[in-house]
């Protein structure tokens, strides 16, 4: 059993479509002094799963890429965000963080901690869990707190499917360009995108890493 910021964590659900990976995660978490429940799947519908988790699990560790072999109808980032809304801390642990970054980023406002697969150990799990528990209570770290800042639309729809737009953040420490999905803006905002426009959004510009950035409360101009 773990106690983190007066939250008691006894039972952690482990979610991965691969039984061997699930077992490996369970062994790691057991070293962190928690009981684990490996979820063999299929997981069913998202809200049904969250409803079943509420009285059964104190926390969850899940992979992102779950839509394999009918294991799940949703992705891990979607699940972690839904659990966060139900006040169940969930940590995403995946090797898909780069390949599926576009799909994970829209949920990062409710997924405080993403551990890269090779970095998972009892300490990184407990640190990630603590970060998530504090955030559910409304205590944001400097790397996760959002500020309303200017977002420069660097380019729009240059891919074949016209699926993405590209932004940079003049107030951030880096001039890196970030790729975002137009679909995550919603049609009304996406239709207003223009190259070189200067919008505002709330962004966690305290982070050092581009892949940790998340955006919300878009304001076109």
């Amino acid at each position: 059993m773990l106690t983190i910021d007066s939250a008691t964590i006894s039972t952690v659900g482990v979610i991965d479509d691969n039984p061997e990976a699930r077992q490996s995660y369970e062994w790691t978490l057991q070293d962190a002094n928690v009981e684990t429940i490996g979820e063999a799947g299929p997981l069913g519908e998202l809200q049904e799963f969250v409803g079943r988790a509420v009285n059964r699990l104190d926390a969850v560790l899940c992979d992102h890429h779950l839509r394999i072999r009918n294991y799940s109808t949703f992705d891990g980032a979607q699940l972690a965000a839904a659990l966060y809304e139900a006040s169940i801390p969930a940590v995403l642990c995946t090797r898909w963080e780069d390949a599926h970054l576009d799909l994970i980023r829209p949920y990062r406002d409710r997924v405080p901690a993403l551990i890269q697969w090779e970095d998972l150990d009892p300490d990184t799990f407990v640190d990630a869990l603590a970060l998530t528990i504090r955030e559910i209570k409304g205590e944001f770290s400097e790397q996760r707190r959002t500020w309303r800042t200017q977002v420069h639309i660097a380019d729009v729809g240059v891919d074949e499917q016209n699926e993405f737009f590209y932004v940079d953040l003049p107030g951030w420490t880096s001039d890196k360009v970030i790729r975002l999905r137009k679909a995550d803006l919603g049609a009304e905002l996406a239709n207003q995108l223009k190259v070189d426009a200067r919008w505002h959004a709330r962004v966690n510009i305290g982070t050092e890493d581009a892949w940790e950035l998340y955006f919300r409360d878009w304001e076109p101009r």
Partner: protein
Amino acid sequence: MTDPAGVTEPSVTILDVGHGLCVLLTSEAEVTLIDTGAGSTVLDQLRSLSRTTVRRVLISHADRDHVGALLTLLSDDSFEVQEIWLNSDAFKESALWAALIYEIDDVERAADTQVQFGVRERQGFSTGPFDVEILAPRLRLAGLGAGSRDTDGRRLETNSLSVVARVHAHGSPLALLPGDIDEVGLAHLLDQTPAPDLYAPILVFPHHGGHVSRASNASANADFASRFVSLVRPTTVIFSIGRGQHGTPRKEIIDAIRNTVPGINILCTQLSMLCSSAPVGAGNVAHLLQAASRGRHVRAWCAGTIIIDHHEGSWRVRPSRAFHQAFIAANASTALCTGQLSTTS
């Protein structure tokens, strides 16, 4: 045992913003910023101090590492900025400059913020017990602008036009904040009779201890550093740096300073890779002050955020030299500030 923690008032805070600069002049009545760094460190610091109004922001020059966070300070509804002092600079980073000007235009039109373009020598302002004296740029440099040439044919860079501000406390010089001034800017600053007195007990070294000469060679950097500290005559020199970025502070600069002023107190906000390539141990925090610090999350700190406050009738620098040196002894096997001096300096 820990160094006395937190910000007291009045104080001068050199915030650990990584590679960049942000200085807070804090008094009971108001906060003034000289540069803002980039990212969120200054916002986090203001939030932790429960300061939502910034009386004034003075920008030394329009590089991202000095001005980036001003965009968010102006954008975010949590803060009110009453006055901005800056020089026009559409030359060096036009995209950043455009971003800033659009944001300033928004707040100025909303009549929330007064904007003063054209910062130059012989201007100044007071904030709490501090008087800020602008020593540079000279009118002729501000007028010519970055990208032009002076009458000696030297190209004026953004850094040449850096605002040089001297902070006086209770009427006496306390700190010199020269932005990223380079040798051309310094030559123009000194080109008057009598040459201005640059004395200040605390110097935040220009350009984070990176190249300060056009030649970009070690000898020219050392000459500039030696000359600069001879003019300022500081007892403490501070480098606001980002670990692993731009190879700062350069060894020839530290050596020149130590050779020119033996025994001088040198502090860097973050631990230079030149001082130790090993990560800082998580427990080595006894000397760190309770203030926002960008290096803290990524275990990159050396002195961390540095605070100059008024204690028992005089101004003191925290972390204290003893605490800082204890950290250096334990964590920086090749420390530039205490190690073997180069024989060429």
